[in-house]
């Protein structure tokens, strides 16, 4: 069953009708509805194209958070071989919101990690909806230590509403853990690549998006604050999230123009949730191209220098008026 978003309701109606017609035809063999059903299919296809051609910022937020979008686990399982999960932060616990370990991308051994949101009630609770606690960021740090020590490229997949705002998380130093993770990723002497595959939520995302190459899926978002949060602070009304989403410039297209990200990976018409395998393949292809380029371009300290320079230079240009 397709999970329709609010703005996809007209589409749901048409697709529903086509489905109904076909069901009737199955029940009554004399009826020939295929022509009408095909016409409805075409109409639905056109509408899907129109809807996704020019998504507003708020609609992109909805697509980015779509429960059927491929998540970190799906990418790791499909794109990497010999994935060997490594657990724990060596301090306190293993945070299930962050998954990662050793794997091969093609022939290249890498360290891969990312936030995983889960795909049903049980796994969502286990993964804490992709909201990491300090243990998660400290796990990121120790995985980067490993990558640095054995000169393995680091690949990070970002998909989180943000770092977990909980009592224990604060007590155990959420801020310090995030700050150290960002610091660590700036210091890794192997290539570091990030892909924002869904939600890039604020400080909780940035530690996993401090990379030589940062890519975003076409309908993913990356923002300093959620549109709802921004609306409740600046508009004093959480219902103004549409306006806030627009003002924050959180789409991949705006971020590319601002020079914050390097590359946009196109999604199939109708978004990643409708063509999961194609989307995962597109991400895999982009990763291989960018990793090969990065490994050719620079090594060791030069990679660190490039990464730092990239962030120091950031923000020198604004958006066109």
């Amino acid at each position, binding site marked *: 069953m397709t999970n329709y978003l609010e703005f996809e309701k007209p589409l749901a109606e048409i697709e529903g009708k086509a489905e109904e017609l076909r069901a009737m035809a199955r029940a009554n063999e004399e009826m020939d509805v295929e022509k009408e059903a095909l016409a409805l299919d075409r109409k639905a296809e056109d509408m899907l194209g129109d809807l996704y051609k020019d998504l507003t910022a708020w609609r992109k937020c909805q697509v980015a958070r779509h429960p059927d979008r491929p998540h970190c686990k799906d990418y790791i399982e499909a794109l990497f071989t010999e994935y060997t999960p490594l657990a724990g932060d060596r301090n306190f616990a293993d945070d299930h919101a962050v998954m990662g370990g050793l794997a091969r991308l093609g022939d290249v051994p890498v360290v891969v990690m990312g936030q995983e949101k889960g795909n049903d009630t049980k796994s969502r609770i286990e993964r804490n909806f992709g909201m990491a606690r300090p243990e998660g960021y400290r796990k990121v740090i120790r995985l980067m230590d490993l990558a640095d020590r054995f000169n393995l490229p680091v690949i990070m997949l970002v998909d989180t509403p943000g770092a977990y*705002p909980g009592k224990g998380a604060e007590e155990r130093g959420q*801020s310090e853990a995030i700050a150290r993770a960002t610091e660590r990723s700036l210091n890794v002497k192997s290539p570091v690549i990030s892909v924002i595959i869904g939600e890039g939520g604020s*400080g909780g995302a940035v530690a996993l998006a401090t990379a030589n190459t940062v890519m975003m899926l076409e309908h993913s978002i990356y923002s300093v604050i959620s549109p709802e949060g921004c609306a409740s602070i*600046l508009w004093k009304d959480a219902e103004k999230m549409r306006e806030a989403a627009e*003002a924050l410039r959180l789409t991949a297209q705006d971020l590319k123009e601002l020079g*914050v990200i390097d590359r946009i990976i196109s999604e199939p018409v109708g978004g990643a949730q409708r063509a999961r395998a194609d989307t995962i393949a597109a991400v895999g292809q982009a990763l291989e191209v960018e990793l090969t380029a990065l490994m050719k371009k620079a090594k060791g300290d030069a990679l660190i220098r490039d990464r730092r320079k990239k962030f120091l230079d950031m923000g020198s240009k604004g*958006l066109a008026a």
Partner: protein
Amino acid sequence: MNWISNYVRPRINSLFSRREVPENLWTKCPECGTMLFHREFADNLHVCTNCDHHMGIIPRDRFAALFDGGIFAEVDVPMPTHDPLHFKDQKKYPDRMKAAQKGTGEREAMLVAEGEIGRTPIIAAAQDFSFMAGSMGMYVGNAIIAAAERAVATKRPLVLFSAAGGARMQEGILSLMQMPRTTVAVQMLKEAGLPYVVVLTHPTTGGVTASYAMLGDVHIAEPNALICFAGPRVIEQTIREKLPEGFQRAEYLLDHGMLDRVTHRRDMKSELVTILRMLTGQTPAVAGDLPKPEDVPAAPDAVAEAATGAAEQVDEA
């Protein structure tokens, strides 16, 4: 650097743009309700004389009390792209900015200066909570980078006073990018072997805590300062329970191992001097009487200026 244009003029501007004097004569302590007379309040570094509650203090006043003789030279900070996102909520960002500039007499939410404390040359940076809640945007990022670069160029330690509601939403993703940017600045200091001391003041929250404020060699906080990543209200909404008294306050963080010390504002200067002189392998600071200014051997430009005021400052302490 010109003392008149860097120190006197902004000071005069800020005096004129502030509220009328009669309203400012008395300040009520929000903690114990004591009415504090402005002169006494200023002399006590904006700390309540009755209950020791630490109130906000603007960077210029803090620096005047921190640096020997109140003398410091501002370090230039490159101005970033103005309103890069063309951000508009209920007000336009440039309008909010102008209001903040008028209200504070400052250009932006961070002041960087060089001078001496207890005759120890340092670079200091202070965040201005009265300027758009001290929020971290491109300028604050540039200020921290400028402070670190100046510290590396002059081989001085950096002392950073943090105070912010978090990242500046009006600069969107570019404010978030100040987390890695300022982290690079901290790395410059560490690689140059220079001490980086963070003084966390009320309140230090969000992306500021989760970057440069938590990467110091030494972390000192002012008493009862709120220091957190997620604010108490957000946490209460998430976990649906009341948080304990003193949660996320300086003393609480000290107990949980995130800070080295909690220090009264009155004692901050001498403590910084002690720590910095040990970290940089200098002799202990001279307490008590120093030779008269004319006996001080000649030192180059800014250093000489600062040294003249040093004597009286140490006398007071």
